[in-house]
């Protein structure tokens, strides 16, 4: 058999999940094979770009500019987009094997990590990732309800999702009305009664995961004062010693900004955003009707692991923090895809440097690969997916060279599309996306916003006249 990757016999690749990792992988494949590769993107949602559309905060439009690169990839004649086609919902892995030489899973991390403390399922306690999906207009989350008549809100965690959630809650209607935040969220936030926002970190200020720009932004909000407790800014001896040995610039800059906040007198703005350190929630307290009324916090101290990491451990000191709304933001976690081996320990597809491994033999499964968060777990910024995807594509190219690929039986685009339409009549292709995109941008222009998003499949079908 002639090895695919020639004009007569292009390499056929399915990329499942049209987010950053999938696009960076497509980019690397196109660089290696030019026109001699056919790439089909699958996404269970009608629109492309994954977390760039549904994760990146609406007031961080600049970060979204990476879609320009992704758009150029989608526009290539040898690339197609099958939106609203879910793997495990509309098609399965066996179907894909009949159509492609190689399959790449880049579905991301679709759920949140659990926090096992009493009361965590009380009404008013939510996963921050769901709030993010809701305010970004994710079709599966648009009908969620978050009770913003609450005055006091706690956000558990100090990573970038926690920072986004706290900032969105702290911003005024006018600050949000110039973004592409979903209309239903803008309306709900306009009526928000939130006055006090607490962001809770279990380690100290020197270990916080947020970046200097993220923390700096919190000091520049129109209607919220930022507050840091001076006593929580005093570094413990272990943190101080570690910083002296290894004076990391980003950490020093974060501490500098936080110290300035700790010293800053309140400016009398209507809302307050307080960043707390060295505290962990141990219990959510019930108001008697199944709703959260407060949170019990334990004060932590730090200890060094054998390898030197400073970890938190609880002391005997407790406090009660009255709150009526809680967002848990302790990280995303991957979900298994039916028919694809999963590594429960890390919540990723079982893989070795991007090659999917068979559970029993531990050997690579021919023709199956993974990239992005479902390969390595949720870490890094959007660009981190580029080296990650390039590493996987390197394995794909080596396996192609060695002839270790799938042998598809149906290789015409028309046959594939006919098959898919039978499973899912409402496929959204690239032309559909271009039209939706233009309509969203036009709706936005009328209101001075980057775009006004469609937030349900029905709405999108109607907009396309289908």
């Amino acid at each position, binding site marked *: 058999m002639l090895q695919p990757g020639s004009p007569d016999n292009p390499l056929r690749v399915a990329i499942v999940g049209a987010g950053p990792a999938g696009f960076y992988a497509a980019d690397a494949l196109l660089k290696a094979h030019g026109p001699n590769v056919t790439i089909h993107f699958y996404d269970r949602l009608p629109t492309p770009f994954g977390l760039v559309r549904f994760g990146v905060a609406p007031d961080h439009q600049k970060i979204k500019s990476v879609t320009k690169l992704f758009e150029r990839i989608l526009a290539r004649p040898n690339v197609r987009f099958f939106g609203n086609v879910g793997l495990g919902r509309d098609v399965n892995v066996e179907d894909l094997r009949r159509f492609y030489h190689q399959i790449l899973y880049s579905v991301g991390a679709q759920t949140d990590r659990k926090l096992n403390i009493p009361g965590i399922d009380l009404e008013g306690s939510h996963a921050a990732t769901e709030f993010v999906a809701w305010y970004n207009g994710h079709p599966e989350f648009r009908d969620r309800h978050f009770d913003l008549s609450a005055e006091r809100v706690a956000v558990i965690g100090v990573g970038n999702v926690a920072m986004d959630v706290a900032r969105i809650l702290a911003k005024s209607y006018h600050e949000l009305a110039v973004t592409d935040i979903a209309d239903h969220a803008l309306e709900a936030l306009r009526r928000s009664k939130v006055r006090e926002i607490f962001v809770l970190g279990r380690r100290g200020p020197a270990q916080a995961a947020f970046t200097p720009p993220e923390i700096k932004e919190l000091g520049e909000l129109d209607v919220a004062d930022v507050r840091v407790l001076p006593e929580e800014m005093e570094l413990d001896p272990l943190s101080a010693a570690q910083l002296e040995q290894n004076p990391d610039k980003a950490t020093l800059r974060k501490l500098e900004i936080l110290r300035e906040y700790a010293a800053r007198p309140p400016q009398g703005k209507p809302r307050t955003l307080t960043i707390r350190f060295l505290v962990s929630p141990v219990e959510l307290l019930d108001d008697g009707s199944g709703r959260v009324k407060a949170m019990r916090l334990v004060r932590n101290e730090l200890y060094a692991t054998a390898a030197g990491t400073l970890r938190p451990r609880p002391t005997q000191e407790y406090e009660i923090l009255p709150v009526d709304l809680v967002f848990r933001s302790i990280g995303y976690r991957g979900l298994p895809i039916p028919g694809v081996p999963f590594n429960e*320990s890390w919540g990723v597809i079982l893989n070795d440097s991007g090659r999917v491994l068979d559970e029993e033999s531990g050997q690579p499964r021919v023709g199956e690969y993974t990239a992005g968060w479902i390969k390595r777990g949720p870490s890094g910024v959007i660009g*981190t997916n580029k080296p990650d995807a390039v590493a996987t594509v390197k394995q794909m190219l080596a396996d192609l060279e060695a002839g270790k690929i799938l042998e598809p039986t149906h290789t015409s685009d028309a046959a594939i599309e006919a098959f898919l339409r039978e499973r899912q009549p409402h496929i959204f292709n690239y032309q559909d996306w271009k039209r939706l995109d233009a309509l969203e941008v036009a709706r936005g222009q009328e209101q001075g916003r980057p775009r006004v998003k469609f937030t349900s499949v029905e709405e999108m079908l109607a907009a396309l006249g289908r």
Partner: protein
Amino acid sequence: MKVSTILATKSPHIVTATPEQSVPDAITALTRYNIGALVVVDDQRRPVGIISERDIVRAAAQGPALFSQTVGDIMTRNVVVGSPQDDLMVVAHTMTEGRFRHLPIVDPESNQLVGIISIGDVMKAQRDTYEGELYTLQTQILSEGDPGSGQAKDGD
């Protein structure tokens, strides 16, 4: 970034040795899997030592007796172990300062081996982190300079 990010993209099948195994056996395993060190575990899969190329070279310098010795005779004991929750930045510092190239990773509750990372893995993860941040910044800066022109560069 955590150590678990590195473990996530490695096969969970970890090549190990036992203290009773012969040194030639260990050498065979090192060459067969093209790796630099084996974690030595007890019957509960808890690390009791590590045997690296360096240990073998050091023993070889003492004469040919090496070939009739056991892994337990020449391995490095008192090995520093890590946990999946360790911060990568801190681990990089610890490994560089302590001058060791392999870090067995154990489950903090059971002390059982769950993986091993090398200084090469750590360096690669750090490089990818910096590269990723650079791409993201580049994309933003280029789009800012020339709005709407599709100038987002992909870094090559």
